[in-house]
């Protein structure tokens, strides 16, 4: 019995990267977000009883860390429990709060560490500091149990962005940070492990060399988070060898047992703000050696007079798409099977409503309704009625733009 999950959402899936990038930067230092008050507390704590109860950074950024212990030599710091409260407006521009919880967190610091590296770099010392960054400072951070939640004020609800039993971050040269995460789950996407490099630059936080293992395949990409504009980011993601059956089982897609094969693709995206309508993207999906069955294929083969089987074999298929105003525009789609080659184009929204056309040997088939309950009919080859028929297509687009 597969666990029922909510549908995969691109934006939420990407929040793992945003969350990790910010956490790694805050914890390992080297970015201007941190205020001097944090380093003062940390430095004093080493000299006296090494405990920190509560650190307030500015009016709206809170860090809670309890029972912090530093062991010499090697300055190994252990934080059994740590919690961040970050106002999400800084990233998303909406009214909810993001909470980051760490348990059994520990960090390894070099003996000669000067904790002042956490603060802002002095412009005069840039050249010297570059070398110091490479060797000194907090160089490693390990979390044994890390949970990051999107805490929604309305409804008092916690949405898990990342839950994992292993989180490691290491400083690399030139201020970049290597992050490694064990198996876990993020934004309803289960994964078997992830690695990435976090590079803070003026006004931007770039996550590069991102690799995540999920659905039997590999995801890689780049994310550029614009720190000076809430909710603005862009990047690209590629995925290879995704197991279609595993995806269908994970999200409890109907007829999952009748779908299998491999899927690869690429998407480039840009979000100008936190709203779904401000998210745009373009990309391609490729499938090969797939077996599938759906109400759409059943009905399409029916109207074409082809035998409707339990499963249809897809030798290969490609589909280009763009996303804008909450609508997915399907373009340049070609599906090749044993006895057929279908060309596809259309529009779909994120609730599963679709309005598509398939072409097969000069016959055009209209597919409307939803993916689960489609209405399929052959369009007449009528030069006069076809354009009028297409007028109805605008309703989906208008609905998306509202």
């Amino acid at each position, binding site marked *: 019995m597969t666990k029922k999950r909510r549908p995969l959402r691109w934006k939420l899936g990407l929040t793992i990267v945003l969350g990790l990038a910010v956490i790694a930067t805050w914890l390992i230092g080297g970015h201007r977000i941190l205020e001097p008050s944090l380093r003062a507390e940390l430095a004093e704590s080493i000299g006296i009883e090494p405990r920190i109860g509560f650190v307030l950074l500015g009016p709206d950024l809170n860090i809670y860390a309890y029972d912090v212990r530093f062991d010499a030599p090697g300055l190994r710091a252990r934080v059994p429990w740590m919690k961040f409260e970050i106002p999400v407006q800084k990233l998303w521009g909406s009214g909810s709060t993001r909470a980051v919880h760490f348990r059994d967190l520990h960090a390894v610091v070099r003996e000669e560490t000067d904790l002042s590296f956490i603060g802002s770099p002095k412009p005069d010392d840039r050249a010297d500091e570059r070398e110091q960054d490479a060797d000194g400072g907090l160089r490693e951070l390990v979390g044994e149990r890390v949970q990051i939640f999107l805490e929604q004020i309305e409804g008092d609800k916690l949405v898990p962005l990342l839950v994992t039993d292993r989180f490691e971050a290491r400083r690399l040269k*030139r201020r970049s940070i290597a992050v490694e995460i064990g198996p876990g789950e993020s934004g309803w996407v289960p994964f078997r492990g992830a690695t990435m490099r976090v590079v803070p630059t003026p006004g931007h936080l770039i996550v590069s060399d991102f690799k995540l293992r999920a659905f039997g395949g590999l995801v890689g990409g780049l994310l550029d988070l614009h720190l000076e504009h809430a909710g603005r980011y862009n990047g690209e993601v590629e995925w290879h060898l995704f197991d279609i059956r595993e995806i269908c089982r994970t999200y409890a897609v109907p007829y999952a047992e009748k779908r299998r094969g491999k899927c690869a693709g690429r998407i480039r995206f840009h979000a100008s703000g936190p709203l779904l309508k401000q998210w745009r993207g373009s990309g391609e999906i490729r499938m090969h050696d797939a077996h599938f069955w759906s109400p759409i294929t059943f009905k399409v083969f029916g109207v074409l007079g082809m035998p409707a089987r339990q499963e249809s074999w897809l030798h290969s298929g490609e589909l280009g798409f763009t996303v804008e105003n909450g609508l997915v525009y399907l373009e340049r789609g070609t599906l090749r099977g044993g006895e057929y080659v279908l060309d596809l184009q259309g529009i779909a929204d994120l609730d599963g409503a679709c309005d598509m056309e398939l072409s097969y040997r000069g016959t055009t088939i209209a597919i409307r309704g939803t993916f689960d309950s489609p209405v399929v009919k052959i369009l007449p080859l009528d030069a006069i009625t076809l354009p009028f028929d*297409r*007028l109805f297509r605008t309703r989906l687009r208008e609905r998306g733009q509202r």
Partner: protein
Amino acid sequence: MRHLLLLAGLVSAGLVLAGLLPACTGYRDEHDSEELRRDIDDRTLESRVRLALASDPETGEERIQVSCREGVVYLRGTVNREGAGNRAETVAKGVEGVRKVIATLRGSE
């Protein structure tokens, strides 16, 4: 004869509509898609250049603004290190997908 002319008129109107309406009510105007793709590709290229500049030892600390339009990368800002401007141009040119680099970087002194 009049009926034939009327019929011919209707057929002509139908053909005109057949030619025009799909272009304005289709799933997506090809131009829109291409424009969207180009814009997003440019933004991705900006990020790649930004990453390359941040990863280079000579330009990593400089505050260089990067923008891109149709594969042409524009570098603006003020650099502190001697030679960082030239280095930034070289680094940007080395990024895959960059057609041309136009740098208007100034030294801090």
